[in-house]
């Protein structure tokens, strides 16, 4: 593995892991912020 490939692999790994963390945070935040409100309005 040459240095360019190593750098690309490192960046890809960091980006992959961080995007999974962001996705999990986003889904949890969406459920907390909007889902409760949506259910409440639906029940009315």
């Amino acid at each position, binding site marked *: 593995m040459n240095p360019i490939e190593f750098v690309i692999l490192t960046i*890809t790994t960091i*980006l*992959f892991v961080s995007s999974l963390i962001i996705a999990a945070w*986003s889904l949890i935040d969406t459920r907390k912020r*909007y889902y409760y409100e949506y259910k409440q309005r639906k029940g009315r």
Partner: protein
Amino acid sequence: MGDKKIKWLIYTVIVGMLPILLRLLVWLVDKTKTVEPFSAADFVMFGLVLHISNINEIEHLQKLDKTWKTVQNGSSVVFITIYSVFFALTLLSGINPPLIDQTRIIYYAAALNVASLILSYTVYDRISLLSRSKRK
């Protein structure tokens, strides 16, 4: 599944994946096997389509939370930058093959596509829920 999510799946995901699917189809019917089954450029384009549609959707909604908007827009910009680097590397590896292995770029771009797809789903999940709660 909400309206927005179905539209995202059909108009963005399937249309974005067309180059990958068509190449695979051509490879399957090609008896001479001159066409490669996968190309890094197709994966790069799919990723770019996903993130540009994310930015476009987020920009048009004023009601969304600012922090969330910033995080999603920022991650989309980072992804677009990396995909552009991958595309440049694909072109460079065509000129100078020992520089980087094309197959590795395909693997990396495909892995990033999975991450992009998940991120894009979270964007449309929020937008879909927001539009449904506004309608009720």
